[in-house]
């Protein structure tokens, strides 16, 4: 299992860097090219959302992105310091995009903050993830 962790300050200009790193990791582990665009957009949305939430909450904590592949699944976990109940100010648009693109999308409490977990199969053929 290969894992990479990226930590960024909650700044808008850092979100592109995180997108690029995640996309490169997905390509390296063999995710099919037709999924790369989905991953780039979904991960970008989640990280941008986390950055904006922390900015609105006045939290300077870094946003932490864990990228894991186990040859069958490509998983991205984004950890932020805001409470899961903290409301988004985009009417849920970012999350609706993410849920349309990721095979799995879960929002879980993590310490005093929360974690969004996104999963895609590595192979083009859908593996029937439950």
């Amino acid at each position: 299992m290969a894992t990479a962790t990226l930590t960024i300050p909650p700044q808008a200009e850092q979100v592109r860097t995180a997108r690029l790193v995640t996309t490169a990791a997905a390509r390296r582990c063999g995710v099919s090219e037709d999924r790369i665009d989905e991953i780039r957009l979904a991960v970008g949305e989640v990280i941008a959302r986390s950055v904006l939430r922390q900015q609105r909450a006045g939290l300077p904590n870094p946003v932490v992105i864990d990228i894991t592949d186990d040859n069958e699944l490509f998983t991205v976990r984004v950890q932020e310091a805001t409470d899961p109940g903290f409301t988004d100010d985009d009417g849920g648009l970012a999350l609706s995009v993410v849920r349309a693109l990721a095979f799995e999308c879960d929002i879980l409490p993590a310490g005093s903050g929360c974690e969004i977990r996104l999963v895609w199969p590595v192979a083009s053929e859908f593996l029937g993830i439950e």
Partner: protein
Amino acid sequence: MELELATRHEGDVAIVSAQGEVDVFTAPGLDAELDALIAEGHCRLVIDLSGVAFLDSTGLGVLVKVLKHAREAGGWLHLVVTSDRIRKIFEITGLDASIPIFDTAQDAIAG
């Protein structure tokens, strides 16, 4: 890669061509440019996204806001989208039903 904007006019239509990526960092710049155009009285707008490699929901938020302001001023907003990758986010969100999308700038201007 950030976002470069170039504005030209054809008759009473303002055409804004975007090159680069529209995301949480660059979307405010696009917002400011479009706001300025509407404030100057240019309410018939074409935004050419054929040079855009990435567009997320923060960019969509700007476009929805500009659509509203342009219509309130008696005008309209049309988009040029030539890439399936960019078209996809409009389809996912259903915004392709709200904002007219064209394959070329000339088609978007003619409306």
